[in-house]
């Protein structure tokens, strides 16, 4: 388009020419236009195709990084996976009640593991229509009352009307317990309870919900399997003794127990395009690029650094996501520089950056605070003290710093009030002022 308009602009003087010239010129122009159009269509189409591929790649990879899709691969948790899937199958097929906790730090793939297992379970013949799932999250179901209603709703018991559950808390509880009590091993549908953020359920009053669920899992009622997901290693200490006694003490630990070479492999796998990608040539190129990236020394350095800070895959995903965002049609492949940039973004020091952007007055104020802090040994101080300190500083260096009125200073302090209100933040500022000046 740009060339085209240029041509037009160029043509304008000719407009005033006599007719002959005009016709000559118009002929020439027409010729030129057609030429330009041809070439632009060619480049445009190739550009377009490229852009299309890139957007497709971005879509696929972003989905992989952001969603815990059960289609991806699991890394280093094969044993745990096997344990879990066997457990689920025994409940689904044999009607055996169980309870299990999946414990691992944040980002270690607990939810992914359970999603994978459920997906595989559903693929087993005759299981998907014979099983009920209840998903609860400790952050959503903040008390037993809400949790009970949610369970009833998800089980779609008979006191559910439309999407609502009626009745009081006590009624709901007795109704649900009665419902679960009626079932037996062989004839009723097994229920899979998945309690995300299990530790938050342990904070509910009397742990009524946990007691009842675990009690069902330990008695001859409707077969249930209770799967708790938590990142707290001390979860068993949170349970009351009678609740704890009813829990089967099965724990599946996810510990990110992989070494750096494995991490590198994960990196490669996470970036590679699947074989079903429509454009084979582009996918091949992309995968080649990823392969070469994983052998690149600087990339390895970046990854090592990242690995040292945190081993979980979520942070790796974050890094790759930032790198992926730099990919454009004109820059279709990830380079080592992209990764380095992304790493820098990841490990950026947020508070340092704030100090970098402060005005002269603010810097002066912070230095004043630092002085105070040194003098009074971490004692808290008030605005008047800071202002006095600032005044002293101005008097010493009157030529370089403009003396601001007190209300102005007050206002500046006020803008940073959220940061400055706590004594700890004064100290924090001190550290940064040391670093940056």
């Amino acid at each position, binding site marked *: 388009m740009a060339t085209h308009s240029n041509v037009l602009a160029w043509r304008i003087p000719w407009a005033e020419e006599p007719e002959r010239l005009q016709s000559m010129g118009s002929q020439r122009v027409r010729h030129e236009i057609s030429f330009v159009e041809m070439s632009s269509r060619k480049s445009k189409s190739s550009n377009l195709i490229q852009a299309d591929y890139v957007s497709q790649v971005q879509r696929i990879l972003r989905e992989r990084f952001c969603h815990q899709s059960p289609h991806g691969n699991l890394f280093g948790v094969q044993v745990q996976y096997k344990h879990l899937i*066997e457990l689920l199958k025994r409940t689904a*097929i*044999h*009607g055996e*009640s169980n309870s299990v906790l999946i414990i691992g*730090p*944040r980002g270690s793939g607990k939810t992914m593991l359970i999603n994978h297992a459920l997906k595989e379970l559903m693929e087993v013949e*005759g299981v998907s*229509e*014979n099983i*009920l799932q209840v998903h609860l999250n400790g952050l959503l179901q903040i008390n*037993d009352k809400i949790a009970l209603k949610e369970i009833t709703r998800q*089980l779609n*018991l008979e*006191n559910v*009307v439309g999407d609502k559950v*009626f009745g009081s808390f*006590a009624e709901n*509880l007795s*109704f*649900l*317990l*009665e419902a679960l009590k009626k*079932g037996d*091993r*062989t*004839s*009723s*549908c*097994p229920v899979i309870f998945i309690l995300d953020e299990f530790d938050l359920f342990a904070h509910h009053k009397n742990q009524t919900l946990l*007691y009842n669920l675990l*009690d069902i899992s330990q008695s001859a*009622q409707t077969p249930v399997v209770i799967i708790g997901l938590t*990142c*707290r*290693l*001390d979860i068993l200490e949170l349970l009351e003794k*009678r609740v704890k*006694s009813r829990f*089967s*003490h*099965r724990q599946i*630990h996810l*510990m*990110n*127990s992989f070494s750096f070479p494995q991490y590198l492999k994960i990196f490669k796998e996470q970036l590679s395009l699947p074989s079903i990608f429509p454009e084979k040539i582009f996918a091949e190129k992309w995968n080649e690029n990823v392969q070469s990236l994983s052998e690149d020394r600087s990339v390895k350095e970046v990854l090592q*650094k990242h690995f*040292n*800070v*945190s*081993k979980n895959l979520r942070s790796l995903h974050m890094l790759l996501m930032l790198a992926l965002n730099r990919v454009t049609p004109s820059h279709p492949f990830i380079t080592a520089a992209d990764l380095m940039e992304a790493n820098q973004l990841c*490990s*950026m*020091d947020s*508070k340092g950056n704030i100090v970098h952007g402060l005005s002269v007055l603010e810097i002066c104020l912070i230095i004043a605070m630092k002085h105070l802090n040194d003098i009074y040994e971490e004692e808290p101080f008030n605005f008047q003290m800071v202002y006095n300190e600032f005044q002293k500083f101005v008097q010493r260096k009157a030529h370089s710093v403009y003396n601001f009125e007190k209300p102005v200073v007050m206002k500046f302090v006020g803008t940073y009030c959220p940061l400055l209100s*706590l*004594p*700890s*933040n004064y100290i*924090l500022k001190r550290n940064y002022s040391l670093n940056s000046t």
Partner: protein
Amino acid sequence: MAYCSARLRTRQTCSWVGRPLLDQKLHYQTYKEISVKREGYSTEIHIQVGQFVLIEGDDDENPYIAKVVELFEDASELYSKKRARVQWFIRFCEVPICKQHLLDRKPDTQEIFWYDNPTCDNNISVETIIGCVRVVALAPDEVMPIDLKNEKTFFVKLSWNKKKFKPLPPEVLAQLDKLQEDNHRYQKSMEAKTKSAESPSWTTTEHAVKRIESRHSTSKSRHTASHPVTPRARKRLELSNLGFPRTPNTRISQATSCASLDSPGRMKRKVAFSEIMSPSKRSLPDGSQTSSPALKTPEKTRDIQHSCTKDARKTSPDHGMILRTRVPALKATETSEERILTPTSRGRKSSVVPSVILKPEYIKRREGKEPEVRDEAPSTSRIRRKSSILTLNRIRQQLRFLGNSKSDQDDEEFLPAAEISDSDSEEEEASTTPLPRRTPNSMSRNLRSSMKSSLQTPSKTPKKTPQPRTPRDATPQIRSRNLPAQEPTNMLEEARLRLHVSAVPESLPCREQEFQDIYNFVESKLLDHTGGCMYISGVPGTGKTATVHEVICCLQQAAQANEVPPFQYIEVNGMKLTEPHQVYVQILQKLTGKRATANHAAELLAKRFRTQASSQETTVVLVDELDLLWTQKQDVMYNLFDWPTHKGARLVVLTIANTMDLPERIMMNRVSSRLGLTRMCFQPYTHSQLQQILLSRLRHVKAFEDDAVQLAARKVAALSGDARRCLDICRRATEICEFSCQKPGCPGLVTTAHLLEAIDEMFSSSYITAIKNSSILEQSFLRAILAEFRRSGLEEATFQQVYIQHVALCRMEGLPYPTMSETMAVCSRLGACRLLLVEPSRNDVLLRVRLNISQDDVLYALKEE
């Protein structure tokens, strides 16, 4: 029944009627009759031997029913010397729920059962008698008379002996029939007396004649007290009356609205009648006569029924009018002669009729007689008649407008409430025509009626509209599976199934002593018909609940075999309640099937257990997780332990909790004193006991090596003695065995190695593996913490201090400089896993950090590399 309960609250004075007959043997003075007088009521009830009476029970709605066998004075009783010996009848709702299914048909609402239980205490105080009631004995194959739905009439068909329903023994039936006859005679005479006693109250109300309200209320009191309205009309009235006590004027107005269906010609005829005819005398026999075919002819044909309805409809306005006209009659102070006569004849008719089974021709004869009777009936002042005709015409027009001029009973039910009240007010207007002041009255009346209509409508609507919203009768049920669950295929699966905690063994090994103790306790209470409490404690997983369940199971079997008296068993669990007071609701629901709020349930239960409820069997209540029932006032525990101490409560309470010294620790003295000293403590299982439990479960399955079983038992016994743990470990070991087995299909035995692995998996702390698997920065942060602790000598440090150490450590180890943000993220990650205990991160660099595990553990974990 509001009437009954209102009576309940008033005090009664009883006095003997007639001369005492001295019982030679018992040294009692027996009587034939007693009169019960209530404060605030001028009525007196005469109760004679052989009559059926209602007796105050734990439920106001359903008082007990019994037959008076003997009336006597007992000086040995402290409070009430006047006693009565009764033969109990039992309502269906009093039959224990678990036994209710034994009656395979649906019981009639008015059906009661002859209570055939000689052990039941039949000596009651006369003061508990509420009033008389009619009981009709029916042969087993006789149909329940449908139309006799009087609240005060009951039918007895079967007897109940706590085990099963049986037809009434012939001699009992004969006796009952005879009694019935007697009864009627009594009732007649008695009602006559009642009426005469009532008459003074009539004269008092007389002064308020001008006030329509009072006039109607008197008419009501008469209306409801003794006089059975034509059943049809009555039924209709009740339908619109459900759940809302309506004032009589609406009843009358409804009756009038029925009358409006009649032809004007008839009305005219009525008008033509003179006033001389005594209205009450003539019309009432008519009413009861017409009612009679409807009362006792279930096999009647459609047209007869129709005519009956019609008759009822025709007569009902007369009732209304009579009630109105009676006031002037009273005013004229005509002596009681006639008035006594009237109710008497009425009473005779209504009480005799049901026992007579009418033949069709008889009915026809009646019908033939009908018109003349009817013609005689109406007799009121002419003026009022005219105005009422006007009103009725108007109403009829309205009805025609609705398109149901020939309306049936159903249509009348659907009469819009507003219209009823409208006709009501107009009717009243008409009735007040003789009075000169018309306008102010009608004004106020209109107001009243509009108020009434607004009150009526809500009471009506919920009855009519089905309620789709709140599913009251929803059955709690989980969907059943299409595919049956697979049965175990190999030895290990079989073993796993048997090892599951839920698998109930045939007997509980190693708890024989405890079993025997509890069994003896409950059995003795059952046999003695007394109550008591027992407190059972023990750490979790020692078989407390299982043992009690087994005891109850055995006792139930014994009760089946008639070795112990039958009893009712109720189980509540403190953990399965949302709130301690809900325990009342649960107990009441399991006991009687009724739902109530916590407070009401507590009252009902207290009434049940505190009063001498004689016709009850013993109740055994198991309260699991007792400590959860603790409240500030401890009223729940107090009540639970207090009820069994009452005489005749027949309540056995077994309580289970984890802590041995719960009574001393959390209970007030008065509560723990009532709990008593019957305590039992379940000790944790020893290793040999655990081994025995395992072996008993694995008796026929060869899946474990002997050493493995012993290892599991010893390990668990050393840790907690929790049988659940032991079973879980073994179950996990079978899984590991199966998993590690090379050849699928024929797994070997579970060895000690498998078991050790399972134990390791369940009991090993995961902190060390977590540290080993954490990232390098996390590990160095932990080191920095250790260094800082060592430096300061404290077990706590601020983040800032640790950060300085951390920076120094990183420099030493050649790691890149850790920024503050990174370090903070590391710190919060470790905090989330609870390797560290940290304050909320809003405190920023000043947040305090602590280790959640010992320093040695951290060192050990970090040294490994």
